[in-house]
Every structure is written in structure tokens, then in C-alpha cells.
């Protein structure tokens, strides 16, 4: 089984700072996303799964509409597999209901001037993100216990929580420990032959807030990829599939 643990906004520097050994695996590094005008989540995951720079296609209907973009499986490397599972990935199996609500809460947070309301909105925003994380996590580990040739789980908690809390090291460390423990559990699963851990971009601080950084994180248990472009994973995965 080939597994991709896709983590939005997993930051290389925090993986190092918190010494997340399981996230680092045997080989790890940063990805090169310099070909994109901005580190947009939908653009990056779309480019990852199709192996092509999809910036123009994703943005053709504007920033607001881009979240509704959905690629046909034939355009993605998921089509290489017989019984793949792809959970919550932007541009493919994205939960528009949850992520849409999350963006509404974010908007309300920035619009209100009332500090009490702001705080309550942030609590609701954080709680929703953790609840959604647990939901996808359950589905992900269930899929890892099934007879599958490919499983991808996309986890947005580091990005969603990070945007309002990146300056809060306690919360961020808690998230990274959780993700590291998930990586450990994946690695212990004997069905998993090849594991790729990948983020679209990292995160950097703007005061207490978090902004996307201009590189992503990758790690594997089988090959040193140096500084890969996010579009290069398409052929890499084809190669692993053909070898298996």
C-alpha cells in the first residue's frame, strides 16, 4: 500500500524545532513551490495530483470560486490505482461544507471589533477544526486497515488553527505532536510499504497570526528527493506503483 499523509501548512522549521522524528521519517526536506505566484492551497494540491502547474486553471473563475474546483480522477495519479481512497483533498474530495463554515468564522473573526465576540469566534473556529480533524483521522485509519493499494488523507488542522494561533507555541506544539503520533501509527501499520508525508506550503508568523511560507515540507521512508517541485510527485508515485 502506498500512503500519502497530506498535511496542509506543515512547517519545516516547526518539525525541526519540535523534533517530530516520525514526520521526518528517513528522508525529509523542503519542496520548491517558487513557480507559483502565491502559495495557494487549492493551486498547490491541484498541481500535486495532476502533475501540472494548475495555477491558471484554478484561478480562472476567481479566488472565491476556486474552492469549488474538482479534478476528474483521470487527470490525477489516483487513476494509477485499482482501489484508492482520497480523503478531503482540495480539488478532489474536499468537504466544502466544513471548510466553507471555517472560512465564514474566519471572516466574522476579522469583521467584529468586539474582543469578547472575537474570542468566542476563535474558540468555535478552533473547536470545529479539531472536530473535523478527528473525523478525517477516523476515516483515514479505517482505510489503512482495509485492502487498498493507495490511501491519501488530507489534514487541514495545522493550517486552519495556524492562521489564528501560529504565535501560540503551546497550541502549535500540541498539533505537531498529534501529527507526529499519527505518523508513528501509520509507520507501524504493516500494510504500508511506501509513505510520503507532504505539505503544500509551510507557515510563518505575523505576530500572533500565521501566513503561508514559500516552501512546503516532504518526507519519505524510501528515497531522498532533495528539493522536489510539487508537480514531480506525479511521476514519482507512478514509479513506485510500477515497482510494487
Amino acid at each position, binding site marked *: 500500500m502506498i500512503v500519502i499523509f497530506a498535511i496542509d501548512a506543515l512547517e519545516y522549521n516547526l518539525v525541526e524545532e519540535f523534533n517530530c522524528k516520525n514526520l521526518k521519517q528517513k528522508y525529509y526536506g523542503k519542496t520548491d513551490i517558487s513557480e507559483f505566484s502565491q502559495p495557494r492551497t487549492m493551486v498547490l494540491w491541484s498541481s500535486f495530483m495532476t502533475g501540472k502547474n494548475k495555477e491558471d486553471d484554478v484561478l480562472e473563475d476567481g479566488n472565491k470560486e476556486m474552492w469549488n474546483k474538482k479534478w476528474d480522477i483521470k487527470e490525477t495519479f489516483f487513476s494509477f490505482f485499482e482501489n484508492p481512497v482520497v480523503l478531503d483533498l482540495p480539488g478532489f474530495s474536499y468537504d466544502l461544507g466544513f471548510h466553507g463554515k471555517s472560512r465564514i468564522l474566519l471572516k466574522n473573526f476579522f469583521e467584529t471589533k468586539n474582543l469578547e465576540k472575537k474570542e468566542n469566534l476563535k474558540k468555535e473556529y478552533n473547536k470545529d477544526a479539531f472536530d473535523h480533524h478527528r473525523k478525517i483521522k477516523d476515516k483515514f485509519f479505517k482505510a489503512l486497515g482495509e485492502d487498498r493499494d493507495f490511501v491519501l488523507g488530507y489534514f487541514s488542522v495545522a493550517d486552519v488553527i495556524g*492562521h489564528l494561533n501560529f504565535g501560540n507555541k503551546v497550541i502549535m506544539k500540541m498539533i505537531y505532536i498529534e501529527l507526529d503520533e499519527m505518523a508513528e501509527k501509520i509507520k507501524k501499520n504493516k500494510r504500508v510499504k511506501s509513505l510520503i508525508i507532504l505539505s503544500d506550503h509551510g507557515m510563518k508568523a505575523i*505576530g500572533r497570526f500565521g501566513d503561508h511560507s514559500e516552501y512546503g515540507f516532504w518526507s519519505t521512508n524510501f528515497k531522498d528527493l532533495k528539493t522536489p517541485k510539487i508537480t514531480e510527485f506525479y511521476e514519482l508515485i507512478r514509479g513506485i506503483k510500477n515497482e510494487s
Partner: protein
Amino acid sequence: MKVEIDNEIIEKIKERIKDMDEFDSVEGYVDYILKQIVGRLEEENKIKVDKEEYSKEDEKKVKERLKSLGYLD
């Protein structure tokens, strides 16, 4: 440091983890649960401490950035 746990609780934990791949001992399970609880308590406490620590300037910057990334209209 050693912590004494009631035998009845230990038996319940053993029963709970017997079919779980990720825990091979009662100690491992207890350690996991305590980390979760302490993490949440720290988070709740930190949120109280952090209240009003957002600067208006940072907020303006990040708001603009989130707009350009497609998170806000």
C-alpha cells in the same frame, strides 16, 4: 516517577487496548491519555492568557494576505 493506579482501572484499560494496534501496554495508553489532557488544559489556559494580544496592525496585514490567498472575500 511511579504512579499507583487502581487495579479495577488497569483491568478496564487492558480490556480497552487489547484490540488496539497502537498500544502494547497500559503504561503507553495512560501516557497517551495524560498527554491529551495536559495539552487541552494548556491550550485552554493559554487562550485566556492570550486574549487581546492581537495587534491591529498584524490583523490588518493577515486579513489582506488571507484575501489574496482566497480565504476571505
